[in-house]
């Protein structure tokens, strides 16, 4: 979802680049008028679905029934939000999303960084084969894995003290593991490119001082990867939070669903109440939009760090 430039190993985003102005050609006045009008019209069109969702969510259903959805009559309040929150069980969904996302992101970054370190700092015979294995795994449509993974989880016996289904089905572990396996490929690829660009003298010197491989990784390389890890971390948080499929496949009881999959239940249950659905949709989007604001800053920080390094 973003562009990680390699081989400079510098994380970058075009959102920042606008600050220094575009790189494109100088354009005539007529060209500019066209550009502004096209962009303005298109971006207004782009905002309509969101604005409409916000507008609908703020109006009570009975008022929209009375005046029509495309109207300004009636009252405006946040009742749909509290109704969606209570009837949709959002507090539970959000907790579930956190239970799944937080460990999945941390473990994904950790595992990816370990492979990336080994592949980028040492000469292996199977370096490229390994990278291909990880990168390609990330590009497969997840539905291809659905039947065997479901069977694997179903027949993977766990004590009832760990899982009330006696297997990996209907557990957070199952969803977390599938998310990790699916995201680790991309992170490995990006981090290995980033690590390749770090000077080899750093770890050489540490090795002369007698530092073991783990110490070189943990104390030297990983801290230097902080900007890349921060940028990747934000992305993976959003991707895993947005995951719909794994929870749909593995979680059978509604009280364990993460919010992205759970909203579908609300959608099915209250199909006739668009006002409630609009409020629920926006509640689901809030964490992502909050991260979106923070993410831009995160990227700017990463970029300045990357460029000051040369």
């Amino acid at each position: 979802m973003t562009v990680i430039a390699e081989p400079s190993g510098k994380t970058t985003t075009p959102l920042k680049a606008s600050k220094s102005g575009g790189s494109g050609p100088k354009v005539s006045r007529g060209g500019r008028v066209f550009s502004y009008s096209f962009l303005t019209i298109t971006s207004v069109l782009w905002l309509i679905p969101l604005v409409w969702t916000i507008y609908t969510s703020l109006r009570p259903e009975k008022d929209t029934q009375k005046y029509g959805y495309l109207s300004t009559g009636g009252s405006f309040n946040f009742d749909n939000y509290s109704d969606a929150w209570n009837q949709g069980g959002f507090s539970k969904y959000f907790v579930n999303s956190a239970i799944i996302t937080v460990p999945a992101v941390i473990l994904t970054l950790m595992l990816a960084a370990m492979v990336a370190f080994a592949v980028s700092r040492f000469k292996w015979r199977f370096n490229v084969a390994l990278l291909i294995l990880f990168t390609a795994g990330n590009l497969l449509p997840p539905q291809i894995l659905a039947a065997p993974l479901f069977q694997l989880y179903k027949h993977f016996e766990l004590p009832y003290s760990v899982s009330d289904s006696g297997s990996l089905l209907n557990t957070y572990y199952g969803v977390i593991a599938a998310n990790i396996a699916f995201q680790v490929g991309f992170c490995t690829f990006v981090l290995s490119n980033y690590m390749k660009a770090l000077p080899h003298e750093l770890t050489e010197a540490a090795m002369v001082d007698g530092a073991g491989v783990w110490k070189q990784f943990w104390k030297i390389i990983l801290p230097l990867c902080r900007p890349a890890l921060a940028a990747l971390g934000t992305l993976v948080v959003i991707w895993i939070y947005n995951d719909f499929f794994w929870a749909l496949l593995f979680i059978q009881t509604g009280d364990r669903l993460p919010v992205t999959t759970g909203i579908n239940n609300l959608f099915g249950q209250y199909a006739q109440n668009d006002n409630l659905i609009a409020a629920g949709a926006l509640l689901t989007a809030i964490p992502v939009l909050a991260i979106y604001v923070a993410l831009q800053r995160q990227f700017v920080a990463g970029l300045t760090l990357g460029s000051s390094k040369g």
Partner: protein
Amino acid sequence: MTTPQATVATDSTPVSRPAPAGKRKKLRRLTGTDRVVLGLMVGIPTLIELLLVWGPALFSVLLGFTDARTDIDQPGGVNFAGLDNYKFITEEYPPFWPAVQHNIIWLVFLAVIATPVGLFIAVLLDQNLKGSRIYQSIFFIPVMLSLALVGIIWHLIYSPDAGLLNSVLGTAGTSDQIDWFGDSSINLWAALVAASWKHVGYIMILYLAGLKGVDPSLREAAAIDGANAVQTFFRVVFPAMRPINIVVVVITVIEALRAFDIVYVINRGTNGLELLSALVVQNLVGEGTQIGVGAAIATVLLVISLVPIIAYLWQTFRKEEER
């Protein structure tokens, strides 16, 4: 679900080249402990990747040749069934060919409409326009949302009696109201417009980065040679973005094959919205579970997906091999 991800190799702006392979540490210079540690660092993630991604992918292919119905541990056992499942899906299973057709339409729509629109917006934003950042932020918002949520938000636009579109057309609540997501002759296109809402912003972001990476002297040279803006773009700038063009092609193809969440939210991928990914899931959950049939459809999807994946890997790792 996540959007397919890809990494762009902007060869045009190398800051520091990776050290040549010969300079890297040789394994034999490592102590025993270090070897074990390194082995674990590579081994654990590789095992997870093999166990949860590649193993299941291969096992899907195997299951497609069996008569597995509800479980691999079913009464009577799982028997080899040859090409029975493939015969069934191609000859007797009604939604299969519509799904293939819809996946192709999905791909063509993204490739011919959504991706070029994203590129066009990126080119416009790449000029020194005021407020460029605001425009970018607006186009980028849908990219942050899950496709499932995109489906729900667009339901509010499309719904027959309460939707914005029918309200604006004056057909809401009348007998002329159009059920954009429910009418099987149009719902694929309605879903594609919704999916493009997200796809365009994604492509725009990729190309904005690509355009910043193009060497300005190329444009100056073209301008001196008397090329106009359109010529400069198509003959100089666009070819110079080759690495990003490849990534965009791969993303567009993979996205078309992966499309699932949005149709599943709308109607579980039925009644005009059949897609291969949705058929796989329909055969795995609920009544009428036919694991063998689902796995056969998954195998078809796997084989098709491997084409862009291999092309992408070949482009990306060819240079790496040469190093």
